[in-house]
């Protein structure tokens, strides 16, 4: 038998990046898919209720590799036991609840089957969303004594302390000089080659913003209306936090009279009775005058309601909104109106023509995203251009 021929080799694979390149393309597609799904994601419960979780799972349906395949759940499979398996043994339980089992659901599709789930950093999701938003009516506030100092390494110099040497640039300089002198290679590093990283101190004045969340908690506001308001405030607060050092939120609940409440009460407690919106505006104005001077705070009052108001109160509301707008950067009115009724409040507000006053009517979940975009439009397409 002749010796079989074989070779053993070990090449340099460091430049082989194919897997990573296609992985990047895949991630690009994931990002695109998320962007397209933003309207749905903005009101996704798992995100709104994810308090503080850094990574959220986003279902992406467009990135499965679709083909004709068998329905796994409807076919038989062969498995292997430890030697004592019996007919009737339960191997596992499907955790997804079967909707309408026994009712003969359609032609047997399973909702919520396996789709591709991408893990996304909350931060990334935010930055994607906020890319599309901008703060209107920014005003220079009274210079604060309070400032923050930040140290940023952002410069390269020829002089510096040894501990801050930039090795890569130093070697590059050396290579460049040697090549110029006709002796390429790394050798004879001279003081002239040395490069140092240098920092700058950046002083930024501290900025404050105040969100006033006003919501109608009268009997007519159901769980849907509250959920919409909650999603909206969730993103708005996060958005303002990216723009201001400090963002404070005040929650004001109202029916016929208004009071300041905690966040939990705000979103969970339902009350009954009629609605007098002016009570909330009155309280907001008082709070601003008492605690939050407009000279120091950028103020953003937002009012969510279903649009039902005591008709005789409307005139007062319009007047108080004028007062509020004098003190605020903008005033937002969001009406959650599932059934597209014509509301008493909206009919009064249609006559307010002030660039600071922005309103939006939300009819379904997906529109929270549009509301955000309306309230915080990009300047280029914004209507508040001066």
């Amino acid at each position, binding site marked *: 038998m002749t010796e079989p021929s074989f070779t053993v080799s070990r090449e340099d694979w460091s430049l082989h990046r194919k*897997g990573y390149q296609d992985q990047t393309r895949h991630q690009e597609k994931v990002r695109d898919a998320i962007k397209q799904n933003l309207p749905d994601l903005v009101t996704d419960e798992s995100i709104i209720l994810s308090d503080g979780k850094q990574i959220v799972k986003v279902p992406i349906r467009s990135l499965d*590799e679709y083909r004709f395949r068998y329905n796994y759940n409807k076919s038989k499979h062969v498995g292997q036991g430890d030697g004592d398996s019996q007919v009737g043994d339960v191997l596992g339980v499907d955790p997804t609840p079967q909707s309408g089992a026994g009712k003969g659901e359609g032609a047997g599709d399973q909702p919520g089957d396996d789709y591709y789930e991408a893990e996304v950093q909350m931060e990334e999701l935010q930055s994607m969303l906020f890319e599309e938003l901008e703060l209107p009516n920014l005003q220079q506030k009274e210079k604060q004594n309070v400032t923050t100092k930040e140290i940023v390494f952002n410069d390269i110099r020829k002089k510096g302390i040894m501990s801050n040497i930039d090795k890569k640039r130093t070697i590059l300089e050396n290579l460049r000089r040697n090549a110029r002198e006709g002796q390429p290679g790394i050798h004879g590093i001279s003081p002239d080659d040395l490069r140092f990283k240098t920092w700058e101190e950046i002083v930024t004045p501290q900025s404050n913003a105040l969100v006033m969340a006003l919501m109608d908690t009268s009997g007519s506001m159901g769980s849907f209306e509250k959920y919409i308001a909650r999603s909206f405030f969730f993103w708005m607060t996060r958005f303002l936090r990216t723009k201001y050092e400090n963002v404070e939120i005040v929650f004001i609940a109202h029916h016929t009279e208004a009071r300041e409440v905690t966040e939990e009460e705000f979103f969970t407690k339902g009350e009954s009775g009629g609605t007098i919106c002016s009570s909330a505006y009155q309280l907001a104005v008082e709070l601003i005058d008492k605690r939050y001077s407009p000279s120091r705070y950028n103020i953003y009052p937002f009012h969510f309601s279903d649009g039902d108001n005591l008709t005789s109160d409307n005139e007062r509301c319009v007047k108080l909104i004028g007062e509020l707008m004098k003190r605020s950067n903008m005033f937002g009115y969001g009406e959650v109106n599932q059934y597209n009724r014509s509301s008493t409040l909206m009919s009064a507000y249609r006559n307010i023509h002030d660039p600071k006053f922005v309103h939006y009517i939300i009819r379904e979940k997906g529109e929270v995203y549009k509301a955000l975009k309306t309230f915080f439009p990009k300047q280029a397409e914004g209507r508040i251009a001066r």
Partner: protein
Amino acid sequence: MNADDIKQLEYAIAEISEIASGFGLDYYPMRYEICPADIIYTFGAYGMPTRFSHWSFGKTFHKMKMQYDFGLSKIYELVINSDPCYAFLLEGNSLIQNKLIVAHVLAHCDFFKNNVRFSKTNRNMVESMSATAERIRQYEIEFGQMEVERFIDAVLAIQEHIDPLITKPYRGSKAHDRRREEAEERAEREPRERRFGYEDLWDLDKEEDSKRKESSAESGSGRRKFPPEPEKDLMLFIEEHAPYLTDWQRDIMTMLRDEMLYFWPQLETKIMNEGWASYWHQRILRELDLTEEETIEYAKLNSSVVVPSRHSLNPYYLGLKIFEDIEKRWDSPSREERERYGRRGGEGRQKIFEVREFDSDLSFIRNYLTKQLCEELDLYVFEKKGQEWKITDKGWENIRDQLVYSRVNGGFPYIVVENGNFADNGELYLKHMYEGIELDLKYVERTMPYIYQLWGRPVHLESVVETKPVLFSYDGKKHHRKFL
């Protein structure tokens, strides 16, 4: 790995190769290449050292690499069916691990070289695929990355629907041949007539006219079947007959079909191939002088390879057990076997070499999975009952048949083109040859638009849902579903 380690490995490979040849294994010249993990995983995801780019490979690569990084799974080697045969070994394998792997790889190579299913595979596929990759890259440059990607997305959705038995392209439509002849004639004529380079524009009218005449002729004789027989090779059928595909698109389809033809025998012989390799790495390693530590390390790795799993079948283990059982039954047949089948005994080795040459998973299981083996391995049939996955059957014949069903057509639904001119309107009518297992309907709905994209006309698929025949249709905008 330093030069010394490589020397040692070379020495071990020489020894192992000699033992393997002594056992009668017949393999191609070997090229062993030691690679870092991310390279092995890249090859694993693509199935080849160089293949065209697509995000789905990136997705697979990312998933596999992550499992490796978290220590959940590990690929120790990768063998390519080629001549010479390339084997990629994971950098960082210990010497004894590599010994097992080399023995395993040699048996794979023997299988590639000798199993009849592989007899028509292109042994220069490494080069072919890298040429394909380059060609597709050129198309990306010429026609835009998005455009090419969008097309490949659609092709990949039907890539399994080839007919591995027919390697020659199908010629069915006379009209198609006629068109082709005309095109060739024109091509011959053209060089003589060309003066300004734009004369062909004047021919467009004539061409359109003759096309129109042809299509009316076709619809006139609409009773003639097209294709004459149901066509399994959906890839080829679309590539040849889809009216709106451009040349580069047809070219990509041809190339991807060739790649699938190359991979197909591997899909058909997974259990056998892995069983064969496991059988031989065990036999070969027994012949080596191992130290105590090496023996323990070998035993650990070996058992991790052939460990039975609960919800799916480990092909390594099942294949190994069947081969061992065949050997046993032909070595020392029972009296009944001697009398009824005339087995003389002592023919075990000979028999398993014969099986590795002529069988595929389908016949391997159907012919050699015995009652005794089913019991010994404690196999069972399970299915979903309500919310629960339950064992529903332990009858050995049902187990065997279920395994066979799951391997039919490589485990993919069997779909044929019934009519390429449905409703005399150029629509594509596909039929799922239903054999008791329903399709995933959500996936059907998502796949139809891809076929529409390729075919350019409405697409229909006949299948069975809850024992009733159903027709799924997609017309480019809307899905329809009706019971027939």
